[in-house]
């Protein structure tokens, strides 16, 4: 249904092409747009594989000097309690509390010269999740607090939905910096605000209440289509929020009635053995859920996992609580993706907002450290078993070829097939590129 009605100004017009009217209920692009975009990406020598992203955010700041980049030769107040162990890649050694990950190391690359200039929660989170450091007026206590769209929102906006599932999902809660900023509600994440490890886990409001069976749901839906006089009217076309609600409603019915989506969201359908391997905890089951969602067509899943802010008793907390969970979840995720033939098309990134101070503090903890840390990533075109860059002797700063959130953004967008040069407009009319001058980290590919 091609109507001139909505082409009111340049911006609204661009928005509306993506939003679609009655005939185009994709949240993202029209098909011809998507095809031409992929053709353009192919011309530019970019991969055309349809890659998805699982962004595992270790909120609070994973201590990478205790996991990915140990310094056994550094003085004791730096090297800490843990020792390195061998992995299945000769010469690559990681922390002793990630033994299962060590056996999957051939699938994982470590970016050891990563850094940014910030060591505050909030601002650093925004930096890592969007590739943009926030500017004046940033209020981290808001949710969402995005000045720039999160990676997932850019992916949702530029690549659109695959099938009936949403393009961008956050779980088990929404990190405050995973919003869509000026890309608007259709690029915002679908949030699963529930713990997938809970025995009664279900995606909130996804299924109709038990008293409404399929027949009754059909009847209700038909009634809604017939009775909502604004749904097909000039009013809805001329009021973008109303049109958006209409689109969301249509998508909601698709989601509620799609067997694929139903299956993807039903974690209880997964084999018990595999669920155990991932770990029966929030982190493990969130990673499993992420794999199920990607399998069903979700393009970007952001897992926000908290409690990595180990100011006190860093070593005990890591050893006893956090690392066993991470070890199980991350190793199983990589193995599971590989077993299913999904690793080539699924990029996994595991990182905190920063690393932790190389010097151990008086509470046997480590504090915030942005100037040097390691990002672990694999799949989706990343060459596993590699170490890229290195930090100095005490992991205080990169020793060579430093890279940062802009470069991570450039690399992940490159792998997913998002045009880095694309610009979006802020509400002030300022054009902002998808990536803020990042470079693609070729050494990873």
């Amino acid at each position, binding site marked *: 249904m*091609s*109507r001139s*009605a909505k*082409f*009111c100004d*340049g*911006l*609204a*017009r661009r928005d509306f092409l993506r939003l679609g009217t009655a005939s185009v209920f994709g949240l993202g692009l029209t098909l011809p747009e998507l095809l031409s975009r992929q053709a353009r990406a192919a011309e530019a020598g970019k991969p055309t594989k349809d890659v998805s992203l699982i962004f595992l955010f270790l909120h609070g700041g994973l201590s990478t000097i205790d996991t990915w980049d140990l310094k056994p030769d550094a003085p004791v107040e730096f090297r800490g309690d843990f020792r390195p162990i061998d992995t299945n890649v000769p010469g690559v050694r990681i922390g002793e509390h990630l033994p299962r990950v060590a056996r999957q190391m051939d699938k994982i690359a470590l970016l050891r010269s990563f850094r940014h*200039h910030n060591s505050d929660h909030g601002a650093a989170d925004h930096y890592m999740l969007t590739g943009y450091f926030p*500017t*004046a*007026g940033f*209020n981290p*206590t*808001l*949710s969402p607090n995005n000045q720039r769209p999160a990676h997932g929102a850019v992916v949702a906006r530029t690549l659109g939905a695959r099938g009936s599932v*949403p393009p961008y999902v956050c779980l088990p809660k929404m990190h405050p910096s995973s919003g869509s900023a000026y890309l*608007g*509600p259709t690029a*915002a994440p*679908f*949030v699963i605000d529930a713990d997938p490890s809970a025995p009664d886990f279900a995606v*909130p*409001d*996804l299924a*109709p*209440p038990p*008293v*409404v069976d399929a027949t*009754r749901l059909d*009847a*209700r839906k038909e*009634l*809604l289509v017939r*009775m*909502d*006089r*604004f749904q097909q*009217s*000039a*009013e*809805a076309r*001329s*009021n*973008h*929020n109303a049109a*958006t*609600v209409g689109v*969301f*409603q249509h998508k*909601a019915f698709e*989601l*509620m009635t799609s067997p694929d989506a139903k299956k993807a969201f039903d974690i209880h359908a997964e084999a018990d053995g595999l669920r155990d391997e991932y770990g029966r905890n929030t982190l493990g089951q969130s990673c499993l859920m992420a794999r199920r969602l990607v399998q069903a067509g979700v393009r970007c899943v952001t897992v926000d996992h908290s409690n990595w802010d180990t100011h006190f008793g860093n070593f005990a907390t890591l050893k006893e609580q956090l690392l066993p969970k991470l070890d199980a979840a991350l190793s199983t995720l990589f193995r599971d993706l590989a077993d299913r033939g999904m690793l080539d098309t699924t990029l996994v990134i595991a990182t905190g907002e920063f690393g932790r101070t190389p010097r151990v503090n008086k509470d046997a903890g480590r504090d915030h450290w942005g100037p040097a840390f390691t990002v672990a990533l694999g799949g989706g075109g990343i060459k596993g078993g590699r170490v890229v860059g290195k930090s100095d002797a005490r992991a205080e700063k990169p020793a060579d070829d430093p890279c940062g959130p802009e470069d991570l953004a450039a690399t992940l967008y490159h792998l997913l097939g998002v045009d880095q040069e694309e610009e979006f*407009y802020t*509400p*002030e*009319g300022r*054009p902002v590129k998808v990536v*803020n001058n990042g470079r693609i980290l070729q050494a990873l590919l």
Partner: protein
Amino acid sequence: MLTYRRRIALLLILLAPVAVSAQVVKTTVDPASISLRGPCAVYSLLVDDHAADGRLVDRTRDAHFRSLDPKVATVTPAGVVHAVGDGQTTVIVEIDGHDHNVAVSTVDATTPRRFNFENDVEPVLSRYGCNSAGCHGKAEGQNGFKLSVFGFDPSADYAALVKEARGRRIFPASPEYSLVLRKTSGHIAHGGGVRLPAGSDDYETLRAWIAAGAPFGQPTDPKTTAVRVEPRERLLTPRGKQQLRVIARTSEGREVDVTALAKFQSNNDGLASVQPGGLVTAGDAPGEAAVMASFMNQVDVFRVVVPRAEHIDPYPVVPENNFIDRLVLQKLRKLNIAPSDLADDAEYLRRVTLDVIGTLPTPAEARRFLDDRRPNKRAILVDELLERPEYADYWSLQWSDLLRVDRQALGSKRAYAYYQWIRRSVVSNQPFDQFARAVVTAEGPLGEDAAADFYKVVTKPGDEAGTLSQVFLGVRIACAECHHHPFDRWSTADYYGMTAYFSGIAVKPLGRDETLCVEGIAAAKNPRTGEEVFAHPFGEPAPTTAPQTGDRRAALADWMTRPDNPYFARNLANRVWARFLGRGLIEPVDDVRVTNPPSNPELLDALAHSVVENKFDVKALIRTITASRVYQLSSKPNATNECDEQNYSRALFKRIEAEVLLDMVCQTTGVAERFDGMPAGMRAIQLWDSKTSHYFLKVFGRPMRASACECERRREPSSAQVLHLLNGPEIQAKLSRDAGYIAKLAKREGGDESLVEDLYLTFYSRRPTAEETTTAVAYIRKEKDRRREAVEDLAWTLMNSLEFGFNH
């Protein structure tokens, strides 16, 4: 995706000659004469056609320019006159076969140029984006070279350019070998590419400055005090062009053409784009845009209006209820847009009730109003609504959001007292200037002056100044904490001047209470310069001596609430207008700046004037707005206004606040909500604590009161909202509750038609059409074995419709 008809129409417009719409009466060159002073002085000529309908059309690019004496002055093909030598000459401007003479006189054209870094070099660095936030202006600079963002700190930039890096960036002995010129002209690799081609005017400026020994200049050198863009406003056809001229005024009172060095930016590139040098091009579609021109931290704006191409002839006769209608229609006529029809009674009733009291009319109220035959019943309704307790609930909620009634920061007792203080002000319709003054000047024990609680939630002087400026003046000054506001005229002195009013103000323990005390002098230190700034309102000159000790906030309150304060009354008018019309005249309402001009400045002025006339009486303002025909227009678009979302030609669909929508769900189902820690029967709009946990309120965007930004209340729809209304178990429980309204309705005798009418009056405040009745009755009868479920399904359908979920 344009329809073919539309495409052809567009093509015809593009092919049509420029001045097709009206006959050209005359052509003029502006200015008629030029006097240039000093070396390198320039002035741009603008050529305009004057159409019979009074419209001006830019013809500058169609004219040919020549100078009679190129030894005195030259002129570029674009019409820029350059002084070359002293004397007098004439520039001939030839257009459409006619010559126009411009007398040019020049003095001091050959005196050596006296450079000033701030006046001559800094603008070049700004003009080419060298000091932008994406490049060397970043906090950490770019590749070892750091400039202050937008050039707010000339002495630091001078040091960076001239002294840092062992002075290798400039080379006075051989200026063209200076690193800064080699890089920017592309002779050696530069991450930012070629910016200043060798030989360009600006390259020459830098070269000559370096050759002159790279002086910083004297403190007595003139400064730029203001800029003015010419013209200020134009109607353009789609794809039409307009050349701008930017004039800077110096502290010596001289006016200088700085078009070539000004930076331009459009607030909507789709509607109007602008090239460096100031050539504006309208887009394909009708609408309005503002083009900012900035030079030396001063800004001005050119407004582009692109009317719909099709004239409305004759323009319909639309009755005017008050000044609002006159000013809106004046604008709509200019844009070739006709307003929608008047809303019917039901549409008006639902809209005005939701807007004034945040509550849905009951079926009984709807029936009474619809059946009321009094001609002035709409005005009577507003008077009644303004006296209802829900009015106080609803408006207290809004001010509690902005003034941040926060249980976490205050504790329950104080948060409740603070809320009650706000509510009492709303109940008594306290004049808004007095309300603002009470917050700005609050003092003493918190138990005695609850307004002082504000200072317990917002504790830093800078935040207090920023919050109160944003809430009461609509101005965001936070950017100016670190650097000159990039899109406005606020400087760091303005920021610290405002902050100084709140320095030394703190909440301290006092026996079993706490008290707000004021100590020290009203000064704030700029941590970057170490300079002490004394309290003064933004935009006013900073005092040079310390003000008297004691509480200085009374002076700030005096300034804010003065009838001629340019922000206060406008802010109130704009905020209230935005609530009723769905869009501020300035949008967002709390981001007033030169570069974000009102869509209808005359209307904003008139509303602000009426606010002052009525002594800041909020209820009077509401009466004025709701009485206008503009407010009472239907939301049904017509062929001319379906694209218009900013000129109030039809009622917009407004999102309903989370609290109001939850109350609507409760009212229509007859099942109240229970909130943790709150008494039974409390409605969501009565919640004084925004931290009361509630899934519905969270999902539908209730603010956390973490800032004073209106944007904290999320107004965008989301999938989660839609799914919750469709499937939420809590919603279904309300629909199927035995003691609820829907169950009662299903059981009631009296015929299915009357049942359906009640449902429609309950959810939509209107009676169903015959067709709607037929559909609904047929559904109930088809499902006769499960009548109650069928009625639930109908109620569910109405609740999930756009008609319910929006205020339209």
